[in-house]
């Protein structure tokens, strides 16, 4: 019997030997925490329970435990945890630390812009040149250069930084301009609130005299029809008056699902710029600039190590730096490369998930309620073919199997079938949100 079952068995018997009130009071939140060499350690919630069990029920508990497991010789009781903190040497007064502050307070309430984002601390590389050039052009001539500007790129690559930098730059040059930065979520909730309070007209007029409107993460507009409609009218009104509009999203306008065509075409009407993944040199440059900001001194070896191991996300680079900075603050010594490897182990090597052919096929067939034999077989029924194609797609993306190898696993198929299936599903995932969801659900099953 394991510890849990054993204690459950003990409790089950004890309740017949003592009153219900006593049972409820003294045995609440108790458990066996250790069982070794005939000694059982019972955790109790407080010192009162400990005294009571030790002095009143010890015999009974021991007797029942013996009946269940013969080799039990002794029962001990412990209260978990310690609420008293003792410091061995009273520390000398520490030097005054930097005053902590609330980050939100830095945000300008009227514009929603955070002054920490500007062009000076934006690192430019080949991957974001185009966006940067467009952004600076707009900052110089808001409303006339490119309108609207649509920036897209993956998470943590600097879209928000660039957007806010434009806003901050315009404000610095022409303080009387009305700049408004709104994450899509805020825009949506403002509209929802206005609808509820029947003040939509007020909101509209308030927004109409904005000079520079910046909306972050517009992909969240997907499926929100009323928001899209209001945004459409706002967009037109501002565009007519040559006011600058800047938008960002994690994918190109074409790939945003459930968004109205007239809105999509407007997104595409100005300038579309993408931010790709930074190359190695740029990552080193980013790290250097961030380290300087944090007043950390790190050798080139260390910077190169970090940049070669974190490749796809600038935010993660910053996270790694924060970890190192925290570590340095504790140890107060210059950090070495080996220590860095230790500190960053959890960031860099996320737990490896493994799977295999069998698991993938099983997950797919279970998900669609088909039999494995059909999927691996020759049937060309529509639903079976679909499941087969998804299996092949997952085999390719998750296991990186070669196409000929994938083909061989399915009766009578070769690499051309595998390639066709892979391409077909990949293409569909770009446009069909439903398929994406299905594949994610299947992946969850694969990796349980």
């Amino acid at each position, binding site marked *: 019997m394991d510890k849990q079952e054993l204690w459950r068995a003990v409790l089950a018997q004890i309740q017949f030997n003592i009153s219900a*009130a*006593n049972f*409820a*009071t003294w045995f609440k939140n108790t458990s066996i925490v250790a069982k070794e060499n005939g000694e059982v350690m019972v955790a109790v919630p*407080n*010192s*009162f329970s*400990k*005294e*009571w069990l030790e*002095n*009143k029920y010890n015999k009974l508990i021991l007797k029942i435990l013996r009946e269940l497991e013969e080799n039990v010789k002794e029962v001990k009781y412990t*209260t978990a*945890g*310690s*609420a*008293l*903190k*003792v*410091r*061995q*040497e*009273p*520390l000398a007064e520490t030097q*005054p*630390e930097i*005053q*902590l502050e609330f980050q939100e*307070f830095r945000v300008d309430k009227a514009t929603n812009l955070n002054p920490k984002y500007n062009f000076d601390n934006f690192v430019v590389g080949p991957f974001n040149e185009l966006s940067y050039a467009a952004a600076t052009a707009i900052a110089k001539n808001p409303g006339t250069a490119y309108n609207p500007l649509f920036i897209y790129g993956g998470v943590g690559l600097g879209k928000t930084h660039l957007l806010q930098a434009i806003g901050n730059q315009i404000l610095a040059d022409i303080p009387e301009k009305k700049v408004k930065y709104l994450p899509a979520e805020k825009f949506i909730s403002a509209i929802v609130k206005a609808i509820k309070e029947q003040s939509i007209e007020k909101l509209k007029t308030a927004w109409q005299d904005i000079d520079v409107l910046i909306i972050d993460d517009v992909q969240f507009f997907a499926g929100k029809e009323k928001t899209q409609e209001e945004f459409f009218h706002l967009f037109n009104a501002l565009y007519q008056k040559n006011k600058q509009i800047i938008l960002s999203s994690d994918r190109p306008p074409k790939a945003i699902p459930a968004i109205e065509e007239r809105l999509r075409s407007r997104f595409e009407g100005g300038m579309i710029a993408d931010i790709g993944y930074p190359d190695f040199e740029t990552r080193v440059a980013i790290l250097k600039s961030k380290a300087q900001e944090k007043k950390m001194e790190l050798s080139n070896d260390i910077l190169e190590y970090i940049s070669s191991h974190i490749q796809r996300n600038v935010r993660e680079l910053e996270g790694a730096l924060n970890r190192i900075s925290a570590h340095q603050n504790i140890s107060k010594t210059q950090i070495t490369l080996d220590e860095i490897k230790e500190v960053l182990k959890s960031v860099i090597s996320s737990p490896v998930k493994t799977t295999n052919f069998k698991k993938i096929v099983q997950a797919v067939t279970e998900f669609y309620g088909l039999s494995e034999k059909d999927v691996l077989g020759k049937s060309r029924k529509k639903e079976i073919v679909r499941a087969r194609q998804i299996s092949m797609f997952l085999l390719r993306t998750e296991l990186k199997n070669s196409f000929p190898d994938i083909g061989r696993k399915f009766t009578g198929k070769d690499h051309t079938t595998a390639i066709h299936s892979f391409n077909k599903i990949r293409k569909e995932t770009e446009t069909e949100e439903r398929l994406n969801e299905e594949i994610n659900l299947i992946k969850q099953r694969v990796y349980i």
Partner: protein
Amino acid sequence: MKLLVLKEKLKQGLSIIEKATGKNLNLPILNNVLISASNNLLNLSSTNLEIAIKYWILTKIEKEGKTTIPAKFLYNFISSLLEEKLTLEQKDKNLLVSWGENSTQIKTQSVDDFPIIPEIKEKEFIEVNNLPFCQAVSQVINFCSITNIRPEISGIYFNFKKDQARFAATDSFRLAEKIVFFEEPLKLKKEYSFILPQRTARELINIFSTEGESPKLRIYLNSNQIMFERLLSEISHPQVELISRLIEGEYPNYEEIIPKSFETKIILDRENFLNQIRTASLFCARSNEIHLKTDPDNKKGILIFAQNPELGESKGFVPGNLEGKESEVVFNYRFLIEGLENMKSREISLGLNGDTGPALLRPVGDQSYLYVLMPIKNT
């Protein structure tokens, strides 16, 4: 069990231990006091399984023994008597209380059911003067968080060093800190800190802030319990012990929240300022908002303003010396009053950090107390 006891002493003891009796439906015996007599000492104990109080009375004991009866009942009964000397005697399942020609019988319950009060085995203790200690605790006790969502701030933070003890409490809207400096350094080898439940702190003040008793208070600690003890003035035996659990958890690093610089700083007469706030508070709307504005119309001082659409509005002015820039800040008036009431100095200094930054109240000339208060965001 048979003993002779003075009514006043028994009444005093019962009034103290009665505070720790608990109302537990599962365990009605927690309403009881455990009476035990041995070695010329009568001991009264009670507990609610969170805190426990033990009280000893020096008395004449003819026969040793133990019994338990409802504490509140016994206290009411004893209080109603006029006679000075009482005889308590256990007979079968009854307690006989007799004086002169009168006698009463009270039903007792089985002693075996009474919870065992855990003991602290550590011999080391911290000894402090009870009055300044209790007074310091009372200056922060009201600012603990009352909900149990964050248990670690539902108690008072204690930190003992050789030469000083710090007491802090916060409910995340305001924070109070009191420092007591010891004239003679404590015999401490280590630094101790812990979080004491607010309820225990209240009992601590009730029991130990009385004058005329032994002036020293001893504190014993183990890993999750604390015991406060005072000795009998006649012999070297404890008179009263208050035992409590400690709250587990990490107390927030509050020192970093205390603002060190201010945009605006002003020295005000405490009495006048407090009165003006009380006056204005009558005009506050439901959210308790009160506006403070420095240097109104170029007069040196602070304007206290409150408005209620149904009642009207109040404007008060307190003169004072101002440094820094002008500002207007909104506070909850109750929080302001509660902070000011814990200060005794003639003047106070008020440091402001705009309408969103934390404000700091301090008594002028007393570096041992401070009160941090967050403004209400003016939307």
